[in-house]
């Protein structure tokens, strides 16, 4: 008696969101199965991989990544090199220099960086804020304005500043809004509800439901994403059907497993390898739980994760 394989069919699907313009676009979502369950239904759009670059340049990058960008002197150079990375689908620019507790760069300077990057590459773009909600309110509104017509994702729209960021990005300048919440299905849904109440089309929203580094409370991430996908597909909850973009690199490169030097922890071995594996494993777990795109830093991580995605498609 052969095995009776029962497919799990859902009548709902994740929204389809296309980023970018012209012939260089990427499309997220559209699937009606749990991640990579190609045996239930074919995958419509495979998950995508973005390359993170920072307005602070190459300083904070791990050694292996620095070597990849060798010779790049301007943000335009860095952006071009990032876009050309093997396995890269889009570029994600993080404006971390804007943080008032850090470099506190003025908005105008950051917008100049945004324009420089946007002019240098024609691939789809994602722009993340500086993590300070007040600064992001003005900064991200200006980003949306500066990139009008490029159909970019403006990330870092939060509960505290959704009106300023959401309205500018989603209504005034027709960009895609990236709604960011902190690893909780209810918070994620609430932000989508209020964002759509501003008049923004649900089809123009992607979610960053938060992530953690593997080993650092990651169980919350797994269960949040599992439950979001379960509600989106199983209960046809259209306030949770937005594709999920997960910035992985910003979580994984700061933990001690990735940042401790080999001199400090000789038994742990080469630092670059630890950092890559931390980034790769966290990203793979995010994708297994339901991320439709991940944002990574190291070229070897980008290559490995995109290879896994292709192998599963």
């Amino acid at each position, binding site marked *: *008696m*052969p*095995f*009776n*394989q*029962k497919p*799990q069919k859902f009548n709902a699907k994740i929204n389809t969101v296309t980023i970018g313009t012209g012939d260089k676009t990427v499309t997220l979502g559209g699937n009606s199965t749990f991640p*990579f*369950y*190609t*045996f239930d239904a074919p995958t419509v759009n495979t998950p995508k991989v973005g390359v993170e670059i920072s307005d602070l340049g190459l300083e904070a990058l791990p050694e292996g990544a620095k070597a990849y960008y060798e010779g790049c002197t301007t943000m335009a150079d860095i952006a071009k090199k990032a876009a050309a990375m093997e396995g890269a689908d889009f570029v994600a620019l993080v404006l971390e220099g804007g943080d008032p*507790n850090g470099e506190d760069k003025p908005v105008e300077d950051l917008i100049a960086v945004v324009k420089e990057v946007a002019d240098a590459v024609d691939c789809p773009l994602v722009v993340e804020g500086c993590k300070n909600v007040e600064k992001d309110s003005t900064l991200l509104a200006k980003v949306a304005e500066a990139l009008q017509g490029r159909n970019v994702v403006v990330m870092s729209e939060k509960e505290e500043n959704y009106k300023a960021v959401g309205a500018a990005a989603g209504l005034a300048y027709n960009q895609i809004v990236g709604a960011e919440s902190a690893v909780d299905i209810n918070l994620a849904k609430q932000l989508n509800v209020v964002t759509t109440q501003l008049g923004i089309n649900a089809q123009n929203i992607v979610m960053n439901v938060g992530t953690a*580094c*593997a*080993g*650092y*409370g*990651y*169980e919350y991430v*797994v*269960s949040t994403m*599992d*439950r979001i996908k*379960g509600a989106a597909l199983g209960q046809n909850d259209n306030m949770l059907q937005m594709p999920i973009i997960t910035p992985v690199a910003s979580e994984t490169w*700061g*933990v*001690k*497993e990735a*940042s401790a030097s080999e001199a400090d922890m000789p*038994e*742990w*071995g*080469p630092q670059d*390898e*630890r950092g*890559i*594996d*931390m980034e*790769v*494993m*966290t*990203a*793979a*777990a995010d*994708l*297994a*739980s339901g991320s439709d795109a991940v944002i990574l830093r190291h070229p*070897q*991580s980008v*290559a*490995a*994760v995109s*290879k*896994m995605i292709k*192998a*599963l*498609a």
Partner: protein
Amino acid sequence: MALSGIQIFKLTPKKNCKECGCPTCMAFSMKVAQGAMKIEQCPHMSDEAIASLSEATAPPMKTIKIGAGSEEFSLGGETVMFRHEKTYVSKTRYAVNLCTCMDEAAVDAKLAEIPKVDYERIGERMYVELVNVKCAEGADAAAYTALVQKAAGLGRTMILECSDPEIAKAALEVCKDSKPVLNGANPSNYEAMNAVATAAGVVLGVTGADLNERYDTVAALEKLGNKNLVIDVTGADVKETFANAVLVRRAAIKDQDRTFGYPSIVNLVALAKGDLHLQAALASLFTMKYGSIIVMEQLTYAEALPLYGLRQNVFTDPQKPMKVETGIYPINGADENSIVLTTVDFALTYFVASGEMERSGVPINLVISDAGGLSVLTSWAAGKFSGTTISKYIIENVEPKVKCRKLVIPGKVAVLKGDLEAKLPGWEIIVGPREAVQLVKFLKDLQ
């Protein structure tokens, strides 16, 4: 399929003899249906009734034990597809691969590398628990047995990947007491393999060209009376292997198809051949989705640190928070004169806060007292992180060891400052930041 109390009641003798400890047969039946009692506890149940009921009330996925003594591990026994539904019970276990196809130097290098990974994380020992010993095509019994014997020297539980019953028999002679897994039953050899595995008293791994072959082979082995099995779901490529892993687990848990109600083995050696970062990605993927044993080419600290952290997170009970040990944790080479910071014993808080403290470079004595494994505000609200609990711990455990009398408390419990000043005479109480990310700046400013 789970039976209702009424269905079970119909099969009882209905004597209300009370010998099982329940007042009536109906009460007993209800308890069996809830899983609180076992059907065998009724002394008057007929054998047929027990057989049909124990089949129906058995958990959807068997718990299989491998290894012996301190190296014994439980696999399987899962009841849910997602951890938030209840909890995952048996952790994924990782094996490093050895093969008769490797030359002696390569084998020795692996054997030297495996014990290097051995550390503790939140009360759990992290090490390479299993060793997979593969018998490559063409290897003879002497060569394979020699390799198995060498691997056995590590003292780790083994998986013998071998589909030749004669060779397997010879190898088991030298290691059967350590209860390895014999992985290699398939449609053409399962009868002989079954005889070898049952004679040695070890778990048998089942494989096949596709899921149907595995399904039929498991069914055939069960007919022969062997239910001490694992299913090797490794297919020709990554996609097939992932499909197999999910479909086997889903058939068992969701569709109650007990033929697939066994733990799984995923072998990444061929799937990620030579690409260690792809191997890392796949190890993570199959930890998330339904690998009970994962066989890897390499498992050094680079792979272990993220992988064991991920496993520790995924296999926690969602209803029980992870706690760290109470104590004084010196950070950045702190000594008795370094400043004291305190927070709760909730593992997530500890990791986030201690990570930021390390980043600051400032020497710190981080004091963790028992706060019930809850976050700062929750434990404060529950009275488990209060002026009384903190001061008691400081007086009993910190004052004898630390000379510095400056204590930084989390900003979220700034309200405790006055109380602590009263209860800890001689201490300067400083209110720290509300969020861990602000610690670096705070600590640098404080200096």
